[in-house]
């Protein structure tokens, strides 16, 4: 009874190609046909028809728009998660004086005033396995003026005063689990904030496709993208303070920290300007993504430290449109 509306002459599973306009009566539903082959065929035809209709509607809309010319209503912007993001009240306004004042007096001020040169110590948790070791080495080539030391069972609390004595400005600890690095603790040494990240999708240099040669000794540029809130700003400044303030443009290397939906992607590229509107980039150097877990005010101290921000899963992960960095 339901197939009465279909075109006469269509029978069997692989019938002749459907004509231009196939009329499906409104009560017809493809799922009512018991025969699987025929049902499949009907479904495909229905789909084709839907697509045609959609295309026709699009064309019509475009014609209307052109016909209206200037008076046409503006194009509808598709909703993305970034568009729909819950407005965070701590978003930094570029002209905010209070923020500017804060940043001029916080722990990174001497770095941004070019009084201190960053010197970085990279270490791991106990007994690092091969992958972590290699990752540390590559990270050391990426970040200029950095040294890798192995931790043979030394407590972090005892290392820190020694580092301060030897004039290090930053400490990076790469935590390891089951032979892959999975955590990063970055602490600014002379009593600066400590950030604890979870690290994921680490790719060493040999795993990156179409990579170039090794990173050279030039100081790279730094790009920090999308750090909008106050928290994001402080984390961004932490990252910026890892690299010396005067990039050597001759080296044409750039390190990028891109924040997207609370995930910070790190990439290291070599760029070349082919023309003034076109640039080519070539990836060299390791890549990894970080997710901020906690930010502590002083140096690393898990028990008595004063936490500025901790990621609390129950409170903070409730909305899909809410991000903190």
């Amino acid at each position, binding site marked *: 009874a339901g197939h009465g509306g279909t075109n006469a002459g269509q029978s069997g599973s692989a019938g002749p190609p459907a004509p231009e306009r196939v009329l499906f009566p409104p009560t017809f539903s493809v799922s009512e046909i018991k025969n699987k082959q025929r049902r499949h065929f009907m479904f495909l035809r229905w789909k084709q028809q839907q697509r045609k209709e959609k295309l026709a509607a699009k064309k019509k809309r475009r014609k209307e728009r052109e016909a209206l010319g200037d008076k046409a209503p503006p194009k509808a912007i598709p909703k993305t998660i970034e568009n729909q993001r819950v407005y965070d009240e701590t978003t930094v306004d570029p002209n905010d004086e209070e923020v500017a004042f804060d940043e001029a007096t916080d722990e990174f001020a001497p770095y941004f005033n070019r009084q201190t040169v960053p010197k970085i110590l990279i270490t791991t948790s*106990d007994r690092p396995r091969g992958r972590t070791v290699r990752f540390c080495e590559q990270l050391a080539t990426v970040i200029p003026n950095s040294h890798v030391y192995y931790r043979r069972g030394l407590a972090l609390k005892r290392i820190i005063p020694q580092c301060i004595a030897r004039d290090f400005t930053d400490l990076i600890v790469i935590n390891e689990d089951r032979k892959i690095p999975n955590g990063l603790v970055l602490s600014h040494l002379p009593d600066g904030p400590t950030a604890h990240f979870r690290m*994921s999708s680490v790719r060493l240099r040999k795993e990156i496709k179409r990579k170039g040669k090794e990173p050279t000794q030039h100081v790279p540029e730094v790009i920090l993208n999308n750090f909008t809130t106050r928290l994001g700003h402080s984390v961004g400044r932490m990252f910026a303070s890892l690299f010396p303030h005067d990039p050597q443009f*001759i080296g044409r290397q*750039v390190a990028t920290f891109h924040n997207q939906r609370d995930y910070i992607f790190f990439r290291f590229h070599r760029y070349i*300007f082919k023309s*003034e509107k076109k*640039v080519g980039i070539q990836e060299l150097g390791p890549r990894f993504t970080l997710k901020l877990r906690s930010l502590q005010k002083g140096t690393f101290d898990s028990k008595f430290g004063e936490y500025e921000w901790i990621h609390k899963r129950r409170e903070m992960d409730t909305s899909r449109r809410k991000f903190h960095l």
Partner: protein
Amino acid sequence: QVVWSMLGNRQFCSYKMTTKTQNFCRNEYNLTGLCNRSSCPLANSQYATIREEKGRCYLYMKTIERAAFPRRLWERVLLNKNYEKALEQIDENLIYWPRFIRHKCKQRFTKITQYLIRIRKLTLKRQRKLVPLRRKIERRERRREEKALIAAQLDNAIEKELLERLKQDTYGDIYNFPIHAFDKALQQQDAESESESDAEREEEDDEDVDKREFVEAEDSDLSDFEDMDKLETSSEEEQEEEEEVEKTASHSKSKGKTPLKGPARRKRPYIEIEYEEETEQTTKTKAA
């Protein structure tokens, strides 16, 4: 004796565990842990053990007289924290007891104190805290990261940022892409008449020759970073690359690969350049 012949040797003792080479006794009052005639607490009516609770060691003793009172069977003596004094205590409590039991008691006590010391030392050192991962959360985070990566469009973002910086002149004079001057020159070209443009073209040909040299030098040297001087010399000249730029742009290959050798193709139709080419190559070989 009777007990042993009944339980221990032949029939079933619930504390007994057998493995391929040994019999073990799971009884908590057992002194050595093996299932023997001499170290079974059930079979011996006079028995003593050392046990420790919460870091303190006790000496437990069992005598024949109390065999009828199971509740008061085991007598407990708290041992001194001091190792030697505790040994003396064991001796004075187990005086006149068979040598085997005394010896084994002292051995057991030694072992217990050793492991207690080790526990105390380890707790002072850093403990590794295992935090369990929640699988669902883990999966969710991974998926979100993938989506964020796709949404980020990193390459585009980086390129845009670099072009922005170029426009804002953060690179200074290194690159010969003065954009506004280029536009102005374009407009100039359009506005002028043909003869003048012909004259310009002739000049440009000469300039092209030089320019091409410079561009070539740039590209070939940029692939190995050792000769920075040539870059600087080319930047010092500060010639505007108008048509060159267009040509290289049209020949641009995929971005990820090594710097392109586009202008290399242009060498052939101009005979004049060959002369300069050779010098170029000689200088290259000298440098390399």
